[in-house]
């Protein structure tokens, strides 16, 4: 090997070791700098996508739009009734809590965010949203959609950009319980799932867990990440084991159709 090549290889190895030994905080700072440089391009791309979508919507048939409008009006009326009912329930709940001297829960306030990019990396199940530190987004903030739990915030950008790790990723773990049973376990995604609908893996159930397919799975609120009673999915199958049982869970959210998500305040979980 030539001396110059040898020197270059040694410097390269030293650089790699330097990068590998960076602390979590330094890596976050590097990533923040990287994404703050990229944000203008991503924002421009997102705006272009919005314009393209708007153009596509405009050219849709007017009758189709009218039918859709009627449907939305009906849905709106229905949701108003649901909202009214929910308010009554909320008031009743508050009265009961006060009566029972429970700690009063903070008012539910979710921040809406638009999904601007899906799965930007090869192996991780993540999406990127158009909210950042400027909108009050914080690390590990729970993310939900109308169907239930979606995931949690994995990286927070300075302005208008954050990354959400989805429930379908192996690295997103949630403490859950199965409705109507004492069974509590840890739910996560599975590695290398690309075909069909993703299934979640519910581990650490008791060896004699008796779960019926169709049972709903909710968050427990333990672990300091997710609030309690968020719907996660339904049990599909149970695999008994000698030490613990596992279950396959169908997620309640359609991850292929995520366009708007909601960020729940982190203080609710603590």
């Amino acid at each position, binding site marked *: 090997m030539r001396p110059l090549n040898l020197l270059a290889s040694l410097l390269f190895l030293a650089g*790699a070791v330097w990068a590998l030994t*960076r602390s979590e905080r330094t890596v976050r700072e590097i990533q923040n*700098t990287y994404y703050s440089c*990229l944000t203008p391009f991503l924002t421009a791309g997102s705006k272009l996508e919005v314009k393209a979508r708007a153009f596509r919507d405009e050219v849709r048939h007017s009758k189709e739009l009218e039918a859709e409008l009627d449907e939305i009006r009906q849905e709106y009326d229905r949701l108003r009734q649901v909202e009214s009912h929910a308010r009554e329930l909320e008031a009743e709940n508050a009265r009961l809590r006060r009566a029972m001297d429970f700690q009063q829960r903070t008012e539910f306030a979710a921040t809406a965010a638009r999904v601007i990019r899906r799965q930007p990396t090869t192996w991780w199940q993540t999406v990127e949203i158009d909210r950042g530190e400027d909108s009050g987004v914080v690390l590990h903030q729970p993310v939900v959609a109308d169907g239930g739990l979606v995931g949690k915030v994995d990286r927070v950008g300075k302005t208008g950009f954050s990354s959400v790790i989805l429930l379908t990723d192996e690295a997103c773990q949630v*403490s859950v319980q199965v409705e109507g049973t004492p069974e509590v376990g840890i739910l996560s995604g599975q590695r290398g799932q*690309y075909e069909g609908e993703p299934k979640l893996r519910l581990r650490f159930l008791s060896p004699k867990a008796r779960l019926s397919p169709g049972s709903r799975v909710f968050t427990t609120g*333990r672990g300091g990440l997710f609030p309690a009673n968020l719907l996660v999915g339904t049990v599909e199958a149970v695999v008994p084991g000698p030490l613990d049982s596992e279950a396959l869970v169908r997620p309640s959210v359609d991850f292929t159709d995520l366009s708007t998500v909601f960020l729940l305040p982190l203080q609710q979980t603590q």
Partner: protein
Amino acid sequence: MIRYTFSLLILVLFALVAQQFIPALTGLFNSRLLLVTLVFLCASVTVRTPVMLVLAFICGFLWDAQTTLGPPGGDPEVYKYPAESLRFGYSIILYGVIGFLMQGIQPLFREGKWQFSTILTGISIFVYLIAEYLMINFVRGGFIFPRATLYQIIFTSTLTMLFSPLVFWILFTIAGRFGHEIRFEGLKKKRRRRAIA
């Protein structure tokens, strides 16, 4: 040489921005065109080892800045077995390895046989993705290699390889403009033969 090297760096940065707008093909097992890796591989065969290593460091560093996952968070009493993630900086090593792999057939490339480099681009990306996936298996435990993952790796490698002639053409154009000699020894021999004749 310096102007060519700087233009390669700009090309890598351009590829990095363009990569943000290349979606995964959900119909093809989430395979995608890895533009940054492709530009690096094609560039690495046209330069000497020190420049290739500089490019490997920059590409790996930027790639990890884009893809590294955050800490799992949560109460360790509840989340006792968090899924480990790959450390920041691992891509630098992988880029170095595939860069050396590409340089292995540099003599053939210099003879004008760029087709071999094109095929090796696909093979290098295959090696890169396999290594990456095996590392994930290693740090997370429990060897899982579904057929869908294999298809994803194969389709990504093939798709990226198909675009390599285009990147080589861009590199030749840049090299020609900045007077960088990629040294086509095959062409030189032909010229010599013509001169003798």
